[in-house]
């Protein structure tokens, strides 16, 4: 580990090593995508996506090692990586590994079941790596405009992934997804334009700048009047992609229709990338505006999102939508951390993003397997799963436990730290509201999943349309899920590998 650290540091912050570390995660998926374009869906092609994900993860690790001491890697003027970026790279890498890994068997099953054809599989093989590229670009871009464009690009790339299965519902979900997200992201663009406008008049120079580090350095010069209009637009706009109230509505539809690995990627990473954008903007906003304004705005959005998720979870009937609403809830929690914004809060929310990404990746992939074996996404259609499919149901149960914030999984630790940070910032009332809502979520989710998991193997109770279930989870499908759970548990217990990096990241994005 030390050797790598020295190697990376030996190369200058913007030397060829940095270039390799920052370019590789963007190029590797493109290679995988072009492979799919050329040869269609093959085993090797599917593994190449996994390899690309591993590349992202490895460069994330390298970037983390390089930036944990607070240094910055840059490539030209366009790509830039600090500790915060490294954390996000890690999140993307980890979730992508799990999602693409389980995607290997997922598409095979879909093909076998006749849900998709060779064209669909090829499209899947092309679009998924491109999706990864777009997200990597979003976190690596030093220019906020480029970051915006990359996030918008994710919408376009994923549009046909959401509609992968075809049919009325797929079209409907895709239309809503594309329409709502485009509108939302357009608002974010308007906000970006206004920030640019403010930066032009902030003594940065004639041309102004959308470069984040430049903006941060001159944030106190930005005109508060303009920023007061820009910040709500940005919150609303990126909030759309993050699945926050009031532009959250696309999320349950898209997540429930997309193929499981894509849902995992969207829920686990895409939402977080949007939050990442807001986190970047928050630093600027807080310096330009008063803290109270930013905090109130974000807090209202965050709490409203958690409340909405809690309400919708209560009477939920579809387990994929259940997971989707749970994503809204967790993004709401993360946004509470963004609202608080102290270093502890930022550390906590980053860990939360990582934990949530892992848990959701595991859960969506597991739910894909459940769908494959039970033939329905209705909660009431799945009964006594633990008795019939112990491994699959076990991973699902543990994933739910993690999602509900039970130790040893890291979400508990990050939620606790979020609560502490908020209380320290004098927002105990918000903690109280959030915790009560979390209790509702807990009861709702636990109640729904308990029905799915527990109970005897009552063969007579199963609805007639279910196909004869596969006897047990194939090993290639189980391995990524178990790996994800183990990683989640380790993250919740051991502080050592991440603590320094998270502290460095919170020093970048946190304001006390």
């Amino acid at each position, binding site marked *: 580990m030390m050797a790598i650290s020295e190697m990376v540091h030996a190369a200058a912050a913007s030397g060829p090593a940095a270039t390799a570390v920052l370019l590789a995660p963007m190029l590797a998926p493109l290679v995988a995508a072009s492979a799919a374009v050329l040869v269609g869906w093959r085993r090797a092609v599917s593994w190449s996506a996994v390899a690309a994900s591993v590349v992202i993860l490895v460069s994330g690790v390298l970037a983390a090692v390089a930036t944990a001491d607070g240094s910055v890697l840059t490539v030209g003027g366009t790509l830039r990586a600090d500790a915060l970026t490294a954390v996000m790279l890690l999140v993307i890498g980890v979730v992508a590994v799990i999602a693409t890994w389980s995607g290997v068997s997922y598409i095979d099953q879909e093909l076998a079941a006749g849900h998709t054809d060779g064209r669909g599989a090829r499209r899947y093989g092309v679009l998924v790596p491109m999706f990864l590229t777009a997200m990597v670009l979003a976190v690596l871009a030093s220019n906020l*405009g*480029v970051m915006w*464009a990359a996030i*918008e690009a994710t919408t*376009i790339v994923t549009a046909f992934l959401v509609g992968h299965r075809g049919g009325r519902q797929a079209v409907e979900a895709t239309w809503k997804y594309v329409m709502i997200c485009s509108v939302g992201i357009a608002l974010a*663009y308007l906000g970006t*334009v206004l920030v*640019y406008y403010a930066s032009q008049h902030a003594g940065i120079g004639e041309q102004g700048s959308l470069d984040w580090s430049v903006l941060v350095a001159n944030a106190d010069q930005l005109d508060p009047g303009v920023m007061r209009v820009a910040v709500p637009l940005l919150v609303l706009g990126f909030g759309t992609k993050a699945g926050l109230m009031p532009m959250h509505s696309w999320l349950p539809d898209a997540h429930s229709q997309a193929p499981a690995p894509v849902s995992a990627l969207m829920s686990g990473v895409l939402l977080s990338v949007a939050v990442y954008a807001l986190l970047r903007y928050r630093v600027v906003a807080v310096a330009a505006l008063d803290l109270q304004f930013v905090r109130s705005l974000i807090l209202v959005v965050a709490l409203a999102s958690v409340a909405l998720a809690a309400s919708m979870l209560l009477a939920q009937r579809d387990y994929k939508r259940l997971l989707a609403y749970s994503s809204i809830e967790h993004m709401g929690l993360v946004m509470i951390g963004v609202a608080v914004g102290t270093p502890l809060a930022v550390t906590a929310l980053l860990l939360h993003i990582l934990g949530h990404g892992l848990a959701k990746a595991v859960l969506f992939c597991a739910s894909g397997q459940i769908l494959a074996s039970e033939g329905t996404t209705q909660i009431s259609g799945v009964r006594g799963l633990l008795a019939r499919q112990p491994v699959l149901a076990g991973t699902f149960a543990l994933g739910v436990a993690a999602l509900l914030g039970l130790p040893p999984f890291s979400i508990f630790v990050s939620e606790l730290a979020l609560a502490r940070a908020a209380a320290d910032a004098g927002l105990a009332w918000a903690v109280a509201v959030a915790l009560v809502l979390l209790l509702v979520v807990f009861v709702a989710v636990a109640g729904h999943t308990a029905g799915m998991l527990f109970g005897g193997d009552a063969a007579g109770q199963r609805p007639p349309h279910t196909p004869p279930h596969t006897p047990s989870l194939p090993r290639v499908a189980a391995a990524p899920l178990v790996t994800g759970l183990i990683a989640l548990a380790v993250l919740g217990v051991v502080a050592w590998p991440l603590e320094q990096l998270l502290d460095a990241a919170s020093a970048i994005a946190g304001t006390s």
Partner: protein
Amino acid sequence: MTDTGYVQILDLVCGGILLTAVLMLWRRELAAIVRLLVVQGVLLALLAALMGVRESSTELFVVAAGVLVLKAIVLPAVLRRVLRDSGEAREAEPLVNVTASLLAAALLTLLAYGLSRPLVALAPSPTTRALPVGLAVVLLGFFVLVTRRRALSQVVGFLLLDNGITATAFLATAGVPLVVELGVSLDVLLVVLVMQVLAARMRLSFGRTDLDGLRELRD
């Protein structure tokens, strides 16, 4: 060009943009709405060119040419194709009727004026004084999105929204950096293309492009 002449032309162009936006709200024939979109695209390109003259920047002329191609030619062409395929010519019953829509448009324009006060205050100039127009178009576009039933109308609403933002960008900052501008334009184009594909699929699955049919996914 003299200052007064510039201001007059600027105001004229901006007025035209707002007018086309309001007309789009008024008209029900989809073909007419697409024509209005073409007009608005041309006006936007004119605005960019005007700024290019003002700032004597060749980059802006390039942008103006791009805007003209994209907003006045390519996108309307795509929309016409959708229109032709679908064979549905009218936005028959908007969720909010035309009278109410026009009243709402008035209110939204007022709101835009109110909102842009701090924006104008930052750097008062003839250009920035026209900023409310951009914001008003954004709000009108959003309004169209919310109230129009046809798939095509929603795409139009999205484009209106986008035009509003483009106008705002030109008026406030004389355009964002080129790389961003390129990204944005590409994105918008792709979004519209995606929507065209979707509208086609929608017609295949649902038989029409009335968005009220899209209500199967619900809680």
